[in-house]
């Protein structure tokens, strides 16, 4: 299997704060991988390093054929990596539909189009012309996922998508992510909610203090074993 994204001994910083320590990860084409870990261990920083928002002082990041230590935020998208950011980052002065269109900025063609997204999340069609931030938290999360799908990604990174979502919606979300994965999109799920991980991921990496400390196959029957990585 091809490797889509890999971090090789990346050390990343915010200013002088050393957050990622020799962080290494490989994402294989087609898989559904989970990155788990407590608050503040550096999961989002991993995403930020990829987007060039955290400073990578050593190590390298490879995306497809490109390898670099310094990525501009727009470059991963061009390589087919779309991010559903933590906190959703819906753009306030754009309508729901415009937010979706923004996701198609790279112009990559593929399965996903606006009608397909509306098919997936009917509520978005109803609210197509209201400002994106007038949606409830759960709806905003759907919009963020829809927006990322609009880029027809080869790899979709979801950073704690269940934050602030009602349990029922979390269930729905699990189905959707699985569906997208089956569609052929590689999934990297960053999560603390192990139920979701159990439902959608097949492999996991556990992060602690900025490094990957464990990895393995997700066994939905024995999910409690992963508990140690997320609960203090």
């Amino acid at each position, binding site marked *: 299997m091809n490797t889509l994204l890999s971090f090789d001994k990346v050390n990343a910083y915010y200013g002088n*704060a050393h957050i990622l320590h020799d962080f290494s990860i490989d994402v294989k084409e087609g898989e559904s991988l989970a990155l788990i870990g407590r608050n*503040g261990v550096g999961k989002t920083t991993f995403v930020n390093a990829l987007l060039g928002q955290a400073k990578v002082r050593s190590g390298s990041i490879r995306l497809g054929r490109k390898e670099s230590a310094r990525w501009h935020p727009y470059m991963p998208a061009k390589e087919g990596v779309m991010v559903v950011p933590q906190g959703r980052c819906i753009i306030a002065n754009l309508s729901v539909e415009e937010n979706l269109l923004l996701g198609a900025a790279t112009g990559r063609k593929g399965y996903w189009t606006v009608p397909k997204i509306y098919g997936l999340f009917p509520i978005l069609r109803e609210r197509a012309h209201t400002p994106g931030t007038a949606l409830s*938290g759960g709806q905003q999360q759907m919009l963020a996922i829809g927006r990322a799908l609009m880029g027809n990604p080869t790899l979709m990174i979801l950073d704690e998508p269940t934050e*602030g979502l009602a349990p029922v919606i979390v269930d729905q979300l699990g189905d959707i992510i699985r569906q997208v994965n089956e569609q052929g999109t590689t999934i990297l799920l960053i999560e603390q*909610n*192990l139920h979701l991980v159990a439902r959608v991921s097949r492999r996991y990496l556990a992060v602690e203090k900025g490094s990957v400390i464990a990895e393995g196959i997700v066994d939905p029957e024995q999910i409690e074993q992963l*508990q140690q990585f997320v609960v203090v």
Partner: protein
Amino acid sequence: MIQVPFFSVRDLVVDYGGVRAIDGVHLEINKGEIRGLIGPNGAGKSTFIDAVTGRRIPTAGQVQLGGEDITQLAVVARRMRGVSRSFQRTSIFHDMNVLEQVFLASHQAQAKDPERDAVAILEELDLLQYADWRAGDLGYGQQRRLDLALALVGSPSVLLLDEPMAGLTVTESRDLAQHLKRLARERNVTVLLVEHDMEVVFGISDRVTVLELGKPLAEGTPDEIRANPKVREAYLGSAA
């Protein structure tokens, strides 16, 4: 224990534009009590603290402290009455040195001996060795503790802490929990603790209130809450 609630919030409603973040919350806390406030993200916990401390003016409802209505008071006036808080997103003075800002906070809170008070707090939070550092140069965890120091200094009567353990190591949060417990028992400080770390919340709270979508979902002793199926479903899940 004094039985008249020292601190009470009645029918609190807070709106952000069209969004109702707090929808009729009722809460009474006794003097010297530690109250845990938990709930899923976006339940309105931070908003609740904001409304109580004057950062946000509530749409409706009343906040009382020791029998006095403080709903309309300015932030500074509340602080003068002993209402003190920490922030979920660290809020410190980046360009000042550590001791200077804690000293300033202590002085403003009319501590008897502001200098000693400030040093004691820094000592307690293991920040004393950074006393002359520029706060902006501190690491994230240290900044979190400094935020906390600014809240704890000057013997507040009501302490509202917004996820104080986030960013602390396990031992640090354990120490902090013990410190809070001492404050409540020995100095009769009323504490409202918003925290996602259930071990801590259930460990030190006298009672726990659960919020969901701006409404109280349940209230009770830690054991009752832990056992409450609604809470398990809405919030605790596997954490119970």
